């Protein structure tokens, strides 16, 4: 390959690439770390171990776990259905599964306000049984599930379609049961995309901000996720505290990225 392989051009392009990544990626991430510890270790530790932070961690982790379980069950079911059977409306179903990806987070929050909030369709039903959805944890769980909705399905469907249905059909003809086929034939083939999809869903669920901001109502100790806590601290000019809480999210993000690369290698 001689094209653009002369030394000066190669170096010029490399310097440009690193400069760009340095300015828009490395510096912001470095800044989070530096500012988090700007008032010293003591402030940092007090901030990240305060009750508000722990409550925010609790809510964020709960929302993430719910999204993971939903993604696993729904994603594998949808992929099974779409890859193994022919039925009318398959393209429509595919499009509906992808829909949450093409929607602004703010709109994702809005549609749940319109469904469950004051004057929403299902509001009378839930107020009759005294369950509050909007401005309460259930809405945070619902929007988090919504924004992570397609992840596992999107990763598994192409893999399962490429694999084909022959093995499962043969097994069924030979009298294998549903669970035998699922665990012994299908699951080993889709382990990697399932894990990959779950990792992506985890990252998104941990860090979702816009959609959750719309439905949360910002009630301290009750509906603050980590991202919302970061926002509140920042808007109160508690910059170092905001960056301290941000390091929790940054740390989990880096773990997720490393996990994804690990999975891709295997």
């Amino acid at each position, binding site marked *: 390959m001689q094209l653009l392989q002369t030394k000066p051009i190669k170096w010029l392009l490399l310097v440009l*690439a690193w400069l760009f990544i340095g300015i828009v990626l490395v510096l912001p991430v470095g*800044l989070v770390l530096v500012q988090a510890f700007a008032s010293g270790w003591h402030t940092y530790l007090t901030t990240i171990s305060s009750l508000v932070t722990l409550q925010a961690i609790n809510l964020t982790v709960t929302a993430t776990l719910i999204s993971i379980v939903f993604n696993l069950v729904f994603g594998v*079911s949808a992929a099974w259905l779409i890859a193994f059977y022919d039925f009318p409306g398959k393209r429509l179903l595919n499009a509906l599964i992808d829909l949450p990806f093409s929607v602004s987070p703010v*709109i994702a929050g809005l549609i749940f306000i319109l469904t469950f909030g004051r004057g929403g369709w299902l509001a009378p039903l839930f107020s009759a049984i005294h369950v509050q959805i909007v401005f309460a944890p259930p809405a945070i769980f619902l929007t988090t599930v*919504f924004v992570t909705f397609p992840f596992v399905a999107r990763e598994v469907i192409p893999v399962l379609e490429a694999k084909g249905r022959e093995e499962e059909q043969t097994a069924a003809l030979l009298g294998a049961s549903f669970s035998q086929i699922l665990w012994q034939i299908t699951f080993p083939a889709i382990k990697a995309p399932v894990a990959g999809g779950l990792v992506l869903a985890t990252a998104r669920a941990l860090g979702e901000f816009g959609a959750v901001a719309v439905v949360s109502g910002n009630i301290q100790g009750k509906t603050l996720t980590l991202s919302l806590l970061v926002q509140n601290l920042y808007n109160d000019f508690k910059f170092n505290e905001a960056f301290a809480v*941000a390091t929790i*999210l940054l740390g989990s993000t880096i773990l*997720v990225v490393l996990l994804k690369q690990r999975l891709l290698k295997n």
Partner: protein
Amino acid sequence: MQQTSKRLIPGYYFSLVITLLGVSLIVLLPFAALVISGWQVGAQQFWQEATNSRVLASYLVSIKGALVAAIINTGFGLLLAWVLTQYEFPGKWLLDSLLDLPFALPTAVAGIALAYLFSDQGWLGRLVVPLGWKISYTFNGIVIAMIFVTLPFVVREIQPVLEQLDFSVQEAAYTLGGGTSTILRRLVLPEILPALVSGFGLVFARCLGEYGSIVFIAGNQPYHTEITPLLIMFKLEAHDYSGATVLALVMLLFSFTFSFIIHSWQRWLLQRKG
């Protein structure tokens, strides 16, 4: 054969029920609420809400920002993909891994970091003050945030194409005396153009909807630095649900039309390539 084997594998109704339940509860029901809520607004009020001057200004800010960010990221995305696929250099894996960060980094974290970094006292904002430039709390800040969150899109679209590209044709052209720029334009560009177009489309669409990373850095001044998603947020906080619904429907309509055009363009490019 297709007919008889149609539902040979057990679990059809089981997977059908779970899938339909999930899609209905999480996607269909809330979207139906949006459409019905929009319907109830009435045509005349809908038009007024969708076209008042503050709303129009917000469309312009969002579209302009998304366009600038998409152009910049398409350029740098091409550069990064080229560097990562064509050169060997120390730290290559690091560059490649760093590119995954914006996918995973929470938008609020990116938002406060960028706002702080590019403010007049920030590490980078300070440097451009003598030039009379301002980045945070201006339109420039919006573009920076958009560039950050969509950084990997174009790279990850082009990378696999460049990796698979067989450069023997290009090299033959080179030894036959073709200039580098001619070869790039005539032989390399057509190969990567479909991926470039779809990357551009992904960036543009994501930028239009982006909220979290932008609100901290934008300054959020009506008519100047107010993006449409933020205006929706304001309307919701003021309990103006019908106004928020109208803007949401306009945004959805616009982004569906846009992705339809991008898809058609990409399909045409792929067909022409053969």
